[in-house]
C-alpha cells in the first residue's frame, strides 16, 4: 500500500505543479485585449474582399465626435522619477516576473502582446498613426519636400512672446499673414544642427506613419524682426526689449550668408490638451480605448527612434490637441513633437556622447562601472560619434546596436515591447529605400554637403543593422495574400537584399469538421499551393519558419469561403 500511496502523492504533486505552471502560461498566452467599448473596432470582423484578404480592421475609429476632454498631462518631474528610477528598480526586483521567465521553456509568453493590431498583425489607421511607407511607398518627391505644405512664415515677423522653457533660444512670432509660429534658433556655431535634424527626422517619422507638427527651417536677418509694441512696453506684464532680442540672437547660429539659422513651428490647430501619457489612456477621451502601453505604434516606435537616434522620446514629446467642429464636438489628435533631438543633435548643441546608448539613470551601467573600477568600456566610448560636421553633431552607425538603443528615460510602452512589436517597427524602418532616405535628408537643404552625405550613409547603415537584427529574431515573412489558389507572401529580408533566395518550412494543421490533420512542407519560394492540401479542409493553421534561422515563426490562419481561401489572421513571433 505505501508504494502506491507514494506514487499517488507523486502524481498529485506532478499534476499540481503542471497546473501551477500551465495556468500562468495559459493566462499569459491568452490574447491580452483591452476591451473596446461598444462601437470600437472589432478584431473578429471578417470582411471578405476580392483580393482575398480581410480588410475590415484597417481603421481604428477613434476619431468619432466626442465632447472636449479636460486638459491634462502627466507631471513632468513625476514622469521623470517614475520612468528613470521607480520603474526600473521595481522591475529589477519583480521576483514573480523573474520566476515566470522560466515558464518560457513551456512556451508561455511573459509579455502581453499589443492589443490594437488587426488580423494582419498591423496597427490600423488611427488618430495616432497612419499606415504609410511600409504599405505604399511615399514618393521620393514628397519626401524631398518634407511632410508639410510649403507654407513658411512670411516676413516681417513681429515678436509676440519670448520662448518659455526648453533649452534652445527662441521666440514666438506672428508672421505677415497673421499666423503664429514658434521660432527656435540653432545653437551658436552649429547652423542647421537642430533645424536640419528636425526636418529630416520629421520627414522620416511622418512617412513612417506618425503625426508631426508643421515645422520649417528658416533663415532670417535681424532686420526681418520687430518687437510687438505691447511687449516692448511690458503692457501685458511680459517685457521683452531689443536688448533681450540681441541677447537671444547672440546665442543663435549664423549661416554663411549672414542670416540666422532656425526653424519655425506653426501653432497646431485645435485646443491643446497637453501631453498624453505613454502609459495610460487620456482621461475624458472616450475614443482612447487602449492602454497606451499596449498600443503597437507606441511600442514599435522604439525601433524608429533607434534608427534616427531620437534619444529624447518621452511623454512630454507628444502632444494631444482637440479639433472641434461647429457643434463643439470633435476628436483628439496625437502628435509626436520635438524629434529635433535626433541624429547628432540636441537643443543646445551636439548631443552628449552617451545619449542613445544609456538612459540618464541606467542602473545596469552604473553597477557595471562601479564594480569594474572604471574599466568597463561602454559602447559609446568606442563609438566615433563626433562627425566633425557642425550641422550634424555626434552620430554614428558602426557601434550602434539595435537592441541596445536607450532613450533618456526608459518608456513604459518601450518596456512592454515584444519581438512582434519590434518586428513591426523594423518592417517600417526597412521599408525606406536608399533613394527615399536621400530625399528625406535632402529636405533639410544642408549648406554643408558633407552633412547630407554623412547622414544618408549612416541612416542606410543603421537601417540595415535594424533590419538584420529584428528580422533575425522574427521571420520577416509578411503581406500574405491568396492568388489563384496559391498563398503568396513576401520575405522582407530577400526583398531588401539582406538575404538571398531561400526556402521555408511550413507546418500545416488543417481542420475539416472535427477532423484535424498535420503536415510538414518545405517551400522553395515565397508561395504555397493550397490546392495540394486535403480537399475537405475548411480551416488551415500554418506555421512558417526559415530553416537554419533562430527567428521566431509566423503563424497564418486561413479559412475557406466557397471554393477560395482567405487569410484570416497573421501573427509574427506568436
Amino acid at each position, binding site marked *: 500500500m505505501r508504494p502506491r500511496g507514494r506514487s499517488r502523492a507523486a502524481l498529485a504533486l506532478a499534476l499540481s505543479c503542471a497546473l501551477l505552471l500551465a495556468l500562468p502560461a495559459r493566462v499569459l498566452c491568452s490574447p491580452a485585449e483591452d476591451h473596446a467599448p461598444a462601437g470600437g473596432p472589432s478584431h473578429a470582423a471578417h470582411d471578405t474582399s476580392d483580393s482575398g484578404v480581410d480588410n475590415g480592421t484597417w481603421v481604428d475609429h477613434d476619431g468619432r465626435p466626442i465632447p472636449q476632454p479636460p486638459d491634462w498631462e502627466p507631471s513632468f518631474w513625476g514622469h521623470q522619477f517614475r520612468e528613470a528610477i521607480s520603474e526600473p528598480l521595481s522591475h529589477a526586483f519583480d521576483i514573480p516576473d523573474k520566476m515566470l521567465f522560466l515558464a518560457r521553456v513551456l512556451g508561455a509568453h511573459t509579455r502581453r502582446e499589443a492589443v490594437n493590431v488587426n488580423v494582419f498583425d498591423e496597427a490600423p489607421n488611427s488618430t495616432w498613426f497612419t499606415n504609410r511607407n511600409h504599405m505604399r511607398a511615399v514618393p521620393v518627391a514628397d519626401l524631398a519636400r518634407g511632410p508639410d505644405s510649403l507654407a513658411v512664415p512670411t516676413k516681417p515677423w513681429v515678436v509676440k512672446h519670448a520662448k518659455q522653457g526648453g533649452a534652445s533660444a527662441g521666440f514666438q512670432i506672428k508672421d505677415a499673414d497673421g499666423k*503664429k509660429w*514658434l521660432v527656435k534658433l540653432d545653437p551658436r556655431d552649429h547652423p542647421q544642427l537642430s533645424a536640419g535634424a528636425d526636418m529630416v527626422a520629421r520627414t522620416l517619422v511622418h512617412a513612417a506613419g506618425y503625426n508631426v507638427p508643421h515645422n520649417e527651417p528658416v533663415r532670417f536677418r535681424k532686420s526681418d524682426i520687430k518687437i510687438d509694441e505691447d511687449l516692448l512696453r511690458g503692457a501685458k506684464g511680459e517685457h521683452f526689449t531689443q536688448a533681450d532680442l540681441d541677447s537671444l540672437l547672440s546665442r543663435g547660429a549664423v549661416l554663411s550668408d549672414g542670416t540666422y539659422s532656425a526653424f519655425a513651428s506653426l*501653432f*497646431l490647430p485645435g485646443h491643446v490638451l497637453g501631453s498624453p501619457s505613454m502609459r495610460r489612456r487620456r482621461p475624458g477621451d472616450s475614443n482612447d480605448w487602449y492602454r497606451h502601453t499596449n498600443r503597437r505604434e507606441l511600442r514599435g516606435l522604439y525601433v524608429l527612434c533607434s534608427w534616427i537616434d531620437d534619444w529624447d522620446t518621452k511623454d512630454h514629446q507628444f502632444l494631444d490637441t482637440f479639433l472641434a467642429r461647429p457643434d463643439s464636438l470633435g476628436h483628439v489628435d496625437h502628435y509626436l513633437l520635438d524629434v529635433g533631438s535626433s541624429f547628432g543633435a540636441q537643443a543646445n548643441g551636439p548631443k552628449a556622447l552617451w545619449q542613445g546608448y544609456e538612459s540618464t*539613470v541606467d542602473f545596469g551601467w*552604473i553597477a557595471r562601472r*562601479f564594480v569594474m573600477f572604471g574599466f568597463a568600456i561602454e559602447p559609446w566610448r568606442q563609438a566615433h560619434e563626433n562627425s566633425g560636421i557642425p550641422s550634424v553633431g555626434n552620430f554614428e552607425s558602426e557601434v550602434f546596436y539595435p537592441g541596445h538603443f536607450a532613450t533618456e528615460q526608459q518608456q513604459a510602452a518601450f518596456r512592454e515591447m515584444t519581438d512582434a512589436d519590434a518586428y513591426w517597427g523594423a518592417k517600417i524602418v526597412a521599408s525606406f529605400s536608399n533613394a527615399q532616405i536621400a530625399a528625406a535628408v535632402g529636405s533639410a537643404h544642408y549648406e554643408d554637403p558633407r552633412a547630407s552625405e554623412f547622414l544618408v550613409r549612416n541612416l542606410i547603415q543603421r537601417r540595415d543593422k535594424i533590419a538584420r537584427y529584428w528580422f533575425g529574431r522574427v521571420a520577416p515573412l509578411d503581406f500574405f495574400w491568396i492568388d489563384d489558389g496559391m498563398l503568396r507572401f513576401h520575405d522582407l529580408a530577400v526583398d531588401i537584399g539582406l538575404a538571398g533566395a531561400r526556402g521555408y518550412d511550413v507546418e500545416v494543421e488543417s481542420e475539416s469538421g472535427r477532423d484535424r490533420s498535420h503536415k510538414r512542407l518545405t517551400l522553395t519560394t515565397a508561395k504555397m499551393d493550397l490546392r495540394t492540401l486535403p480537399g475537405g479542409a475548411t480551416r488551415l493553421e500554418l506555421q512558417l519558419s526559415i530553416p537554419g534561422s533562430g527567428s521566431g515563426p509566423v503563424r497564418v490562419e486561413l479559412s475557406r469561403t466557397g471554393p477560395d481561401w482567405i487569410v484570416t489572421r497573421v501573427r509574427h513571433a506568436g
Partner: protein
Amino acid sequence: MGHYGNRVMNPAPKGAAKGLSVAAAIDVGGVTEVGAGPAITWAGFPSGDSKLRLSGSWSTTDRRRVRLSERIGDRRPVGLRLRGDYDYKPNLRFYGIGNETPSANRSVFLLESASGEAALLFGASPLRQLRLVGGYSVMGPRRGYQGTPRLEDVFPPGSLPYQDRATQELLYGATGDFAALDDGRDPTIGVHGRVELRRAAGVRDRDPDFNQWLVEGRAYAPVFAKRRVIALRAVYAGVDPTGGTPTLPFYRLVQTDGPLRFAGYPSHRFRDQQLLLGRIEYRWEVWHRIRGTALYELGEVAPQASAFTARAARWGYGGGLRYGLTDEAALRFEVANSVEGIQATLTMRSGF
C-alpha cells in the same frame, strides 16, 4: 487655435534668483544626530552680486547651530566675505591628547563656541584666491550631556589645559587657494595648493596666544583615461603657542575632524599640536558626476614636528562614492577600515 512649443520640455535655464527665500537647513552629524531648521537667503543684499544667508538648526542631540554669511562680489576680482558661527554641541568627543590615546578613553563634553570672520578676497575664482582674514573667536568647554562617560569622569579636573576655562581670541592672517586644474569639481589632472596662516592673540591676559596654520597639497593624474584618476592629498596642520603661552587649550588643538578626520576612525579621535595626513585615492566614474573611490590613508598627530614617526602613523583604507557639488565642496560617502574597526561616514567637505 492651440499651440505647441512654449511648454517645458526640459527644465528652463534659471538665472540668478533675487530676493528673499526661505528653505530648510539640515545638519547631519551622525546616524543619531540630525538637525533641522530654517535657512533664510537674501539674494541681492545689499547689492546685485551679494548674498546674505542665515541658517539655524537644532538637532536630536540638542546641538544648536546658527550661521550667518554674507558675500559681496564673491566672484569678482576683489570681494568681501563675512561669516558668523555659533555652535553649541553637548556631546563633543574627547579621547585625550596625542597619537596613542586609547579608544576606551572616549568621553563627551559640551563645547560652546562663537566666531566671526571677515575676509577680503583677491581673485574671482575660489580655486585661485588670496584672502586676508581677521576675526574673533570665543570657545568654552562645559559639562557635557547626551552621552557618557563625561570628560570629567575620565579626565580628572585639572588634568587638561584650560579644562574649565573659556578663551577669547582675535585672529588675523591670510589664506589662499592656488590651483591649476582641468575641472574644479572633478579634477582629473592638475595640482591644488591651500594655505591657511592665522595668528591668534588672546583678548584677555589669561587667554593664550598662538599661531595656527594649515598647508595642503593635492595632485591629480588620469589613469589612461579621464574617467579614472589617482588623487593625492597631503596636509600639514598645527597650532604653536607664542608670546610665552606655555600650553594651549585642549579644545583649540588640531583635531581629526571634518576635512582632517582620519579614515576608519571616529571624528575627533585624535588631537594634538600638529597633524600630518596623507591620502592616495583612486577615483573612477560611476554615473555622471558621481565617482567611486578606493582610498588608503596615513595620519598622525604629535606635539611637535620632530615627534612624528612612520611607525606611529594611523592607517585606514576603504572606499565609497564622491559627488562633486561645487569647486569648493564635495559630498562623500565613505566606508573605511582601521585597527579600530569600520567607520561609515557621510560628509560634505572641501573640494577633495
